[in-house]
């Protein structure tokens, strides 16, 4: 009797286990993708000077493969707390001009937009960065210029409201930034009339202009707390095809707004070995908006400190002396906080910096933004 019960029991248990094992677990459907390599074809390349006209050149240039609109700025709240922000729109064309076809659906596109939104809460030592992707179609993301310029990815957007006035809005995860921008100097053409050569091949270049001093005023909401803020911002708009040459992995870029009403932009293009490329350039914008181009030999950047990201273990420079002997300018540039590393679909450091220095014996100060790319992975081929 007992034996039978045992056997029956065992079988029942075994069946029970069988049933429970056989129930499909709720797991996602997963697959890997195999495709043909993308079509080879030609995008237009930035070769030589072009004529800029605004607001139409604020918009997208889909003949070129990549393009970005970079808004950065430093803000101070009514209670004295300091903030830095970055709102960047990237555009990438998927299909060369020659391969494009007309299609019926409004969703059809060969343009992909990506945007990064970051907020540095300097006083709280907090840094948040967000990323979005979208197709550049169906009204989800894109640019328009008629009658005025707008660039947007969903509800992250910059909209021109008058000739020199813009409205910037971005919101994500409890952080809302709502700013009025006033361009005090007008578009500043970088390089030679906006043609910014980045390598020995004239096509390894971009078209590049900046709005080097944007007066900012608006409201920032963080974690339910609303703050009136004001400050100064910088805008870069750059487009081209295969901007970086082979062997160039990234760049260090500084946009510095000085207390004497001038701005300094410098970038160095770095090679695989950490060497600085001779196509590194800079510009000085005088208070009246006139500019001085700085060539490779016109400035020196010395790294005074480094910071190792605890998240990625990537080592970034974290303090610089920038000298432009021709201008009798020496600036000490320090990150306002160390951890302003964006760990998104690519990893880079972009953050608020403060400046102390002197020009011709006069003490000057300032603030700005620095961008350090290519430390975590090479950007060659992406830009």
């Amino acid at each position, binding site marked *: 009797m007992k034996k039978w019960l045992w056997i029956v029991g065992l079988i029942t248990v075994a069946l029970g286990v069988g049933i429970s094992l*056989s129930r499909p677990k709720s797991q996602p*459907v997963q697959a*890997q993708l195999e495709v043909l390599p993308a079509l080879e074809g030609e995008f237009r390349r930035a070769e030589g000077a072009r004529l800029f006209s605004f607001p139409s050149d604020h918009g997208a240039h889909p003949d070129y493969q990549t393009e970005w609109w970079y808004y950065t700025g430093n803000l101070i709240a009514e209670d004295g707390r300091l903030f830095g922000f970055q709102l960047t729109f990237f555009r990438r064309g998927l299909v060369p001009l020659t391969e494009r076809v007309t299609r019926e659906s409004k*969703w*059809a596109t060969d343009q*992909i937009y990506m945007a990064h939104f970051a907020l540095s809460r300097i006083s709280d030592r907090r840094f948040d960065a967000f990323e979005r992707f*979208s197709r550049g179609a169906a009204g989800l993301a894109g640019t328009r210029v008629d009658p005025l310029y707008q660039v947007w990815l969903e*509800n992250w957007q910059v909209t021109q409201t008058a000739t020199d006035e813009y409205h910037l809005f971005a919101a994500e995860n409890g952080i809302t930034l709502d700013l009025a921008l006033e361009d005090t100097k007008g578009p500043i053409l970088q390089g030679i009339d906006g043609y910014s050569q980045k390598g020995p091949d004239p096509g390894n270049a971009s078209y590049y202009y900046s709005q080097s001093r944007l007066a900012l005023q608006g409201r920032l909401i963080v974690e339910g707390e609303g703050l009136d803020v004001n400050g100064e911002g910088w805008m870069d708009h750059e487009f081209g095809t295969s901007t970086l040459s082979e062997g160039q992995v990234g760049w260090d870029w500084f946009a510095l707004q000085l207390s004497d009403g001038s701005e300094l932009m410098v970038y160095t293009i770095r090679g695989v070995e950490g060497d600085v490329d001779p196509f590194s350039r800079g510009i000085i914008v005088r208070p009246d908006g006139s500019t001085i181009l700085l060539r490779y030999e016109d400035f020196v950047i010395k790294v005074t400190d480094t910071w190792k990201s605890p998240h990625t273990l990537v080592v970034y420079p974290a303090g610089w002396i920038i000298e432009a002997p021709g201008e009798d300018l020496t600036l000490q540039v320090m990150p306002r906080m160390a951890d302003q590393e964006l760990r998104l679909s690519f990893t880079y450091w972009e953050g608020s910096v403060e400046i102390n220095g002197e020009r011709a014996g006069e003490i000057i100060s300032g603030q700005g933004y620095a961008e350090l790319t290519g430390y975590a992975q090479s950007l060659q081929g992406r830009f």
Partner: protein
Amino acid sequence: MSWSASFLSAGILNVSVRYLWRHRLQSLLMVVGVALGVALLVAIDLANVSARRSFELSVETVTGRATHQLVSADPRGIDESVYVNLRVQGIGVPVAPVLLDFVTAPRMEGRALQLMGIDPVADAPFRSYLNLNGQVPLEQLVSFLTRPGAVFIAREMAEQYALDIGQTLEVEVGGKRRELWIAGILKPKDTLSRRALDGLLLADIATAQELTGRLGKLDRIDLILPPDPRFIRSFEMQLPPGVRLEGAATRSASLDQMTAAFRLNLTALSMLALIVGVFLIYNTMTFAVVQRRELFGTLRCLGVTRREIFVIVVGEAFLVGILGSFFGIVSGVILGRQTVQMVAQTINDLYFTTTVQSVSLPAESLVKGMVVGVITTMLAAVLPAWEAASVPPRAALLRSGLEARSRRAIGLVTVFGLVAISSGYGLFSLPAGGLPAGFAGTFLVVLGFALLSALLMVIFLKISVYPLGRLFSFVGRMAPRSLINSLSRTAVAVAALMVAVAVTIAVNLMIDSFRYTVTLWLEATLQGDIYISAPTLTATVPSQPVAREVVDVVEDLPAASRVNYSRSITVDSSRGAVRLSAISNERIGWERLYLKRFVPIEETWQALQEGQILVSEPLARRADLMTNDSVLRLFTPQGWQTFHVAGIYFDYASSEGAILMSMDVYQKLWQDDAVTAIDLRLRQGVDANQTAQDLQKKLGNVQELLIRPNRILRAAVMEVFDRTFAITAALRFLATVVAFIGVLNALLLQQMERRWEVGVLRALGLTGKQLWQLAMLETGLMGLSAGLLAAPTGYVLALVLIYVINQRSFGWTLQLLPQPETFYQALIISLTAALLAGLFPAWRMSRLQASQLIRNE
């Protein structure tokens, strides 16, 4: 104690195994009985589980991790601007557009494929098959996004149809030919993914819009919302009218619900086969006990307890159950190949399209078969085991004592039978009983009739003594009496055969009635001369719009005296999704059969024009719309609207329910002038076939169309009907096979048991021919009584199936059509089965020598 217990247990096991082995034929028949029942159960369960699983997988593939969906009342889909606005206003939660459609590929034998349009950039939080390590591989999506007609397909499909990246594939979308371009191949990471992706064509949302011609539209918007009712409520408040938020599980649950009754019916039918099998086990086990009464008596003398005797018998049943279930599962799986196909076909015909084809063997079906097989076998053995345990230790009672007892028990059995029938009837009249009570009642009624059969058989046999005596002299008188004398065996066998045959009769009557009803219904409903629609994948209702050009051509057709249009869509009602057909037929009052009318026949159209609706019988039953003042709420592009019910019409096209609405009312509310079906009334003397051919020639280039004269359409509908009942017919046949084996078994045992008696008869001088006659008469009488008893039982069962089970499962009222052939057939089946079953024992009996037979004693 423990030592002796285990010693005895080992001995007991030996007793059982040896007994079963010595009586191999008998054991084999038991095993076959269980195996057949289990095989049917498993085959049906496999079909049900596979159908459900493939449906779940299809749903899972397209739903992914969405918690909610936005859907539109507009049959053309939700406007894409709803999605764009959500994005641009910064909804702050994952949201993705989805466009779904079914396409067929001529190259794949017209197989239905699920075209799924997504935005790969927005889709990552929902479905992971484009999402490599959390990142969207834009570089790999270039041609997917930018090339017209680009799709990704799963590797299995690519291999099956020899498709490779860069090749084109021609498909039909809504009757129009389109060319797809294979942009990539999805390699599933596991078998579940492999099945889920089977039959899927993944496309960019732009491509999907272009392929389906549904520019500006989405099917739904997927969302992952936080489980915060306040958030959800405030989100709902912001939705435009005609757009609704629903839980992602809601829709699939309601689809699952749709087929639940269908699947339950199949299961119940397969259970009937098992019940016949149980009769068989009971019969055989009782015999096995009777055979060993002396042995059990001896064992009791040796100190074996009653409990242990009980365990011996139940243990034997357990062994038989295990073996039988094992073989049952194996044959069930083989049989399942057919049933899976049939069930899938029916579900595709009647309910929805599933594209997932390959489904694994669900282990739970196999486990279920084993558990049910073993347990029912053991339960069937409980009574004989109890009987064995009650054998007094001294000596075994004589068989004659047992038989005398069973004859006395007839009265009790008959009372039980009457009680079972009346409680079954009582269950049917329970107001809130529903389908489960319906099945329980059916079971009780069947059981009751089986119990009654003992008395009725005795009466029948007693009556037959005289005429048989006249025909076959003393052998003719002997046969019925000997059957009465071994009543404990014969009654069970006859009951089993009777139940099986009654099931055959009932199912036959039900199918005939159903067919008859559908014919009547088609006659009343299909009054057009020519019907035009675009081909769709489900067989019952056209849902694909007919091209505008087609409507224009038909409008001006000189041969037509009248043209009716209809537009069929699925609409959400307060009682779940229902089919809505907007119609322009002013004579609708006459061109349907009505269960109830709440307005006079000549005012029906007027009532519809004023915004009332007609509802189908299943919907009226389900949604409780049987009274004059009933209203139904429907979700329209203008939001929820209330409609008065003007009448209830018979409809056998859908069990979930259908609504008829005036075309004018529909177009005003839905702002949709699409047409899904056209029916033409031709002028006197115009040839429908010729006109249909002409139209086909004229319109064939515009769109792939079904242009069918009335007769052809009716035939097509009946074809679907027959296809739907193919599985029922197959089950009916298999139940008969089980019954046949049951009878064979019972008769074999009965005859084997009587070896000694036969020997004596032989010694007394009966010839081989007379013995042959005796055996054939006995089995023939059993078959005849089963067949005769099956007629009333089958009739009652048919009534139950038609008026209880069908109505509760599907909401359909069928017109009963009792065809006499059904009863003749049943009688012939049972007689043939019985006579065939009698052949072998008769042959053996007539061959054996008297000395051989008696010597065994």
